[in-house]
């Protein structure tokens, strides 16, 4: 029962933000604005799903910010050369390839994921700037904008795309062997190894899938701004880690539901929109988001300490 309460908390936070904002500024509740919230959260949500796959294994991916920039450049160049679909595919493949590099370094060569992905952050940005000579590439085919800015009836395509990514990541994390293995590795790496999990291989595939999802987020972004930009969304990785942490998933790995990341991304999206509606400047927004991430995680740590206390007193519990 406590677990259900804990998993409900993020949704209550969204409700709280919405109620407070609506009380001050009723415009927040207009249907157009609510759709806006979803549309803006979509990219962050997809990046947060990618991050979740990595975080449950006890690793972290800080490269998403420059990776989406590289993906946007490659995707737009490919779309210009051979059409929209080729552009989308090239973007996702670029993400997966970068994920494979991370996965090899972390899984096979046992470089800490922090270092491997910070290095990736640096060279992905360098490559993104290099292939375009430091300037954006523009004018992909008109159809290229469908994924990021189109509508299916009243529903924005990016929201549908994010739901699709959710379903994909959900099946992988909670219904497939790979997800189980990643959770097991995050819970206790040695135990995973002893029970026959090929840790290096699982971590590798976790990073590849995460990279492909980041690639997808990058394509959504590129499609939204209708260009490839070397400085597309530099803080994406940080916000994705923030969303995962706010959703209540411990960054130490071993546990986490994908729906928590969804809630975390929605909290950040709602908060950002609320601050915009309330006329705060982007600088103040950034400050508030930074503070909120730390406080949310601190509250989470305090909560889990409180929940753990009875377990510690249990006779026979092992530990240092």
């Amino acid at each position, binding site marked *: 029962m406590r677990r259900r309460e804990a998993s409900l908390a993020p949704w209550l936070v969204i409700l709280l933000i919405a109620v407070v904002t609506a009380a001050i500024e009723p415009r927040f509740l207009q249907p157009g604005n609510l759709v806006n919230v979803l549309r803006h959260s979509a990219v962050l949500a997809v990046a947060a799903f990618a991050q979740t796959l990595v975080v449950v294994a*006890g690793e*972290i991916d*800080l490269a998403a910010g420059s990776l989406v920039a590289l993906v946007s450049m490659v995707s737009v160049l490919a779309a210009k050369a051979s059409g929209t679909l080729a552009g989308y595919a090239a973007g996702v493949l670029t993400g997966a390839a970068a994920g494979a590099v991370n996965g090899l*370094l972390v899984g096979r*060569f*046992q470089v*800490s994921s*922090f*270092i*491997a992905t*910070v*290095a*990736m*952050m*640096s*060279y992905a940005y*360098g*490559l993104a*700037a*290099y292939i375009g000579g*430091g300037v954006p590439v523009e004018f992909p085919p008109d159809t290229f904008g469908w994924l990021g800015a189109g509508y299916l009836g009243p529903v924005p395509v990016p929201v549908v795309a994010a739901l699709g990514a959710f379903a994909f990541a959900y099946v992988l994390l909670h219904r497939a062997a790979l997800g189980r293995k990643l*959770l097991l590795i995050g*819970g*206790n790496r*040695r*135990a*995973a190894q*002893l029970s026959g999990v090929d840790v290096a291989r699982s971590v590798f595939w976790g990073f590849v899938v995460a990279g492909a999802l980041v690639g997808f987020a990058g394509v959504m972004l590129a499609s939204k701004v209708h260009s490839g930009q070397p400085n597309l969304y530099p*803080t994406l990785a*940080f916000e994705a*880690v*923030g969303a995962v*942490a706010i959703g209540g998933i*411990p*960054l*130490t790995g*071993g*546990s986490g539901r994908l729906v928590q990341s969804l809630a975390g991304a929605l909290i950040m999206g709602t908060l950002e929109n609320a601050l915009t509606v309330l006329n705060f400047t*982007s*600088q*103040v927004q*950034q*400050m508030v*988001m*930074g*503070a909120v*991430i*730390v406080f949310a*995680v*601190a509250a989470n*740590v*305090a909560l*889990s*300490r409180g929940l*753990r206390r009875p*377990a510690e007193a249990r006779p026979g*519990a*092992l*530990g*240092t």
Partner: protein
Amino acid sequence: MTRRLRELMPLFILAVAYLAFAPVSPGFATAANAANIAGQVAPLAIVTVGQALVLMTGGFDISVGSVAALTTVAGSLSAVATGSFASAVLAAVLAGAVCGAANGFAVGYLGVQPVVATLGMLMFARGAALLLSGSAPVVGLPDTFVSLGYGEWLGVPAAAWVALAVVALMEAFLVWSPTARAVLAVGGNETAARLNGVPVRWTRFVAYLVCGALVGLAAIIYAARANSGQPTLGEGLELDSIAAAVIGGVSLAGGRGRMWGAAVGAVVVGMLANGLNLAGLSPFLQDVAAGITLLLAVWLQRARTPFWRSRAFSTRDARREVRPLALPAERLAGNDERS
């Protein structure tokens, strides 16, 4: 490798990098360029020894770039308002110490993972820097800044003297002060440190605080060299400082490292940028090179430290969380993989 040899490794890397660049980069191996590198590297070296102190506790500080931006703006604003150089230094160092204290409080006392705590500060400080400066560089600094940024004493840039003094102080601090020895103890084996009466939380707090204050000091040099307070300063500084510290032999898993080694690592990183620049490499490809350098540096260290043991993502308390999925095996192996 013996410990003594290992500690000399950074100097060896420095020599190899120097000899590699000398023939291919025109104008690299000259006295003027050496002074140039020294001036460029000075602020990075100061940030790196701060970062090294945090790394030694087994943590990370990825907010150094944003904090540098915030403190360079704070220092410049204070200098413009009062016309006094001393007040600028005071404002920057104080602002940096406050940011560092916030990081240290979150990590040490609230049990937030270093990555998340400093990530929050990364966003907060960047926003604050842009807000304080109105998103434009702060100009009109007193002349003292110019002499700090470009003055020389005995043929060595003034900024380099400052960095040298800071590194020497921090090395002495590390060798003689009980607090700094506690830093190494906490990073080496937290449980053992606590059982021996080391105040673990306080030690973490102090490490982040000192790192923040040093970033503030470096920010004054950045302001002096740009002759303005740039709110966009410091992108990639976390990468550079961590790479420099690792090249300098500071262990990412915590518990090991020397301050002078970290400073030599900063010189290697600065020399690399300078050498690649003189060799005519595109600045964008220099970012690619920086990433690869970091990986190589870690690779060099890997033989000595298994990196999956890095403690950067876990505070002790968080690690002991109940993990339902792994329970049966955990009972066999013990809760803690390192126990």
